[in-house]
């Protein structure tokens, strides 16, 4: 019974909240997050200005590094994890990501096609006269 009461208290966690940890463990979590984020940031800035890697790969690398760093922030600073006590938070995050990808991906896709299919401005202007 006491076991069940214990589970009942822990079945849900607020976003930003951790499971019960000591202060030392919590500080350690933030330190790990900070170090990882600084490493990823330094890599991003290094890759953006270097000649050492194949140039066309740089934009892809930057985007991958950015997504990785956002993941680090979510896990170590916002404490959004995949545990069962975080189901609500993860579902909300998943829906938010869906909308973000629809908006950004859809816009870039459609506008790139419009740009490619539209004649240049100096060709349009004579048509209007």
């Amino acid at each position, binding site marked *: 019974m006491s076991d069940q009461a214990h589970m009942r208290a822990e079945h849900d966690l607020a976003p930003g909240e951790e499971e019960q940890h000591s202060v030392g463990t919590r500080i350690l979590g*933030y330190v790990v997050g900070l170090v990882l984020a600084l490493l990823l940031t330094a890599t991003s800035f290094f890759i953006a200005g270097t000649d050492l890697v194949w140039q066309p790969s740089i934009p892809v690398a930057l985007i991958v590094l950015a997504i990785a760093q*956002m993941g680090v922030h979510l896990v170590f600073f916002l404490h959004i994890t995949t545990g*069962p006590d975080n189901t609500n938070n993860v579902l909300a995050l998943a829906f*938010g990501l869906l909308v973000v990808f629809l908006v950004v991906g859809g816009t870039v896709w459609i506008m790139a096609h419009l740009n490619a299919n539209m004649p240049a401005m100096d060709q349009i202007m004579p048509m209007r006269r």
Partner: protein
Amino acid sequence: MSMTATAGRAHADPHHIGLVIEHPGPAPKRIVTAYGFWIFLLSDIVMFSCFFAAYAVLADQTAGGPKGSEIFEQRNVAIETVCLLLSSFTCGMASIAADVRNRFWFYLGMAVTCLLGLIFLVIEFREFADLVARGYGPSRSAFLTAFFSLVGCHGLHVSAGILWLLTMMAQVFAKGFRADVLRRMMCFALFWHALDIVWVGVFSVVYLLGSGV
């Protein structure tokens, strides 16, 4: 008897997440508040994604004006990034201090967070003022309009965050670590960390991708 007990368990755990929850009742206010704020943060991120989409479409429309690679200074952006990252860390320290009700570390963490946020804002403001003084204001080209809206919108969020931060320090000073003050502190920490996530997108997409092309 054992069958009804099993049926009861299966019903109480419909998603097989391994936890049996029998009539847990409404969630504590702390969880409900933070969850609602999390929904707000996600909608804020959706709004930022619209600015990102606009920037991605308009980044090449310079109308004869400067390109991104001609006006961005990587050194400033690196300092801004480190400031925000460290402020996220000190904000985390302040929220731990609030949870253990340690006033000294709370004030210290919040003060350092505020200082780092102000350094970030000063650098950003000087960058904007410098661009406008050189005639590269938001009305110069579609690219600059998108740039100023996206980066300026993040800057506005940081300014609002600093106002909120000072409010939290005043509330802890005046009211102590009451339950409602702690809930607000939790929402503020979420807000500040979410701003850092948006900044990761800004410096990667705007400054680093923009200066390479």
